[in-house]
């Protein structure tokens, strides 16, 4: 029984039983051998069967990092992304916060090192090798598109979409459906009427400071559909802006939303004044309308000053410009600032 207690380990009841039986058998055997000289035939082979099974612990191999050569190809040791494994990395690493004067925990059995994402699979030589491998699938960049201006000139329409990379069983992200089209308004072939109409159609999608029209679509579930829709919107707006409806001819001077110098009495006054001064005789209303302001010296400046005054409201600057333009037009001396 003492043997039983000494050998007893928690969780190995079976073993304990065996030991108990083995022990009692052994005592019996010893007694018998003393009394008789013949060996007893052991039919049931109890002795061999009761051999205690020794739990063998397999030998732990030494670390792989200890057998590594200094000139090995690291890419073969660590080919892909993987959590840190101390026996594969031949670096004396430590990580962890410890009080001052102590050494941080080493690389073995260190969960912190396993947590941080590592880039052991993306060492510079490996990146170089992989770039070389995919080089044969690449084509050279077109030589004529060597600067931003050339790209903008040849490809005026800019399409902006986003791809998303995330950890999830599905690769789809609903945000990737959004498509944005950007184009410079000056790249579109529009006349004055068409431009005005186009701006009215696109509304706040036009940015005046950058001259960019931005059309965004996210109403369809797939990016392809949104791209088609964006292109359709641009095309439709463009052709619609070139259409002139019958009722647009009914627009009178009172309906104008901005001051148009060429349609206002200012032009008629200017032209008739100029004709009288230069003694060329009077013009009819039609002739006045088609008369080119550029023929009058300082005419364009006057036109600009008057238009600014009406369109951009009265301010010191516009009034000053108007003053200077009128003085130039009439050949008066420049305004002397009172000292």
């Amino acid at each position, binding site marked *: 029984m003492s043997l039983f207690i000494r050998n007893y380990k928690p969780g190995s009841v079976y073993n304990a039983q065996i030991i108990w039986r083995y022990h009692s058998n052994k005592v019996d055997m010893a007694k018998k051998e003393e009394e008789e000289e013949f060996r007893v035939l052991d039919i049931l082979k109890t002795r061999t069967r009761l051999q205690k099974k020794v739990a063998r612990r*397999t030998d*732990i191999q030494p670390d792989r990092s200890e057998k590594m050569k200094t000139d090995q190809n690291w890419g073969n040791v660590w080919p892909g*992304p*993987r*959590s840190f*494994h*101390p026996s594969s990395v031949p670096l004396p690493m430590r990580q*962890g*916060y410890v009080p001052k004067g102590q050494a941080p*925990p080493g690389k*073995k*059995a*260190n*969960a*912190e090192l*396993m*947590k*941080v*994402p590592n880039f052991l699979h993306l060492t510079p030589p490996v990146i170089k090798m992989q770039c070389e491998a995919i080089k044969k699938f690449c084509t050279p960049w077109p030589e004529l598109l060597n600067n931003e201006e050339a790209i903008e000139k040849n490809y005026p329409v800019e399409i902006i979409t986003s791809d998303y*990379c*995330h*950890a*999830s*069983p*599905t*690769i789809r*992200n609903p*945000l990737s459906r959004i498509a944005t089209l950007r184009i410079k308004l000056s790249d579109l072939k529009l006349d004055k009427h068409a431009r005005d109409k186009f701006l009215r159609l696109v509304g706040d999608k036009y940015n005046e400071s950058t001259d960019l029209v931005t059309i965004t679509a996210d109403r369809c579930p797939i990016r392809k559909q949104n791209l088609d829709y964006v292109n359709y919107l641009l095309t439709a707006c463009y052709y619609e802006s070139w259409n002139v409806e019958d009722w647009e001819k009914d627009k009178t001077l009172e309906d104008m939303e901005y001051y148009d110098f060429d349609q206002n009495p200012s032009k008629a006054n200017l032209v008739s004044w100029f004709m009288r001064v230069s003694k060329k005789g009077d013009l009819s209303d039609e002739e006045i309308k088609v008369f080119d302001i550029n023929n009058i010296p300082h005419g364009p400046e006057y036109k600009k000053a008057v238009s600014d005054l009406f369109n951009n409201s009265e301010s010191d600057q516009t009034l000053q410009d108007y003053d200077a333009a009128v003085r130039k037009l009439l050949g008066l001396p420049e305004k002397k600032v009172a000292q």
Partner: protein
Amino acid sequence: MNNIIKFAQSATILPQWSPIFASQFHTSSALCRVVSGKYRITKKRDKPLTYEMANPPHYIAHRKSWNSWNTSSLKDGLRKSETAVEDEFIRRFITGTWHGLVCSEVIIKRQFNHIRVAVIIRRAVSPTKMYFLLGYSEEMLSNWIQCPVTLELQTVDSYQDVVFKYI
């Protein structure tokens, strides 16, 4: 709360009820003590703690890092709740399947649809059994979650190897 008691005591409308009102309320200051994720010091100072346990939760991102790495926790991340539930399921499955062998927290990293589970395991069972459990866990988890699951194990001789300090 004190105001209510005062009101109840000074109320002239129901003077006969006021002592009852006052006795119904037990007031004491709120005990704002954070105890989750912290371990109490034992008398003999012999309670083993791993590095993870030795640093309370407010040291995450300062002294220790997260146990789950995924994009769901980022702003506008997708599948927030699903990811959390799956991670908890994986944790329970691993600690149950590798019963008594897991020596550290179960670290779950997700990249695209690939789930990598990193654990420190005690070398208490034979390598054959370990290989079986490895394949079994990977197969079962990938069947349930419908993603490739990889177990990245590190083995230690005994629990003593991961002990950081005793309190």
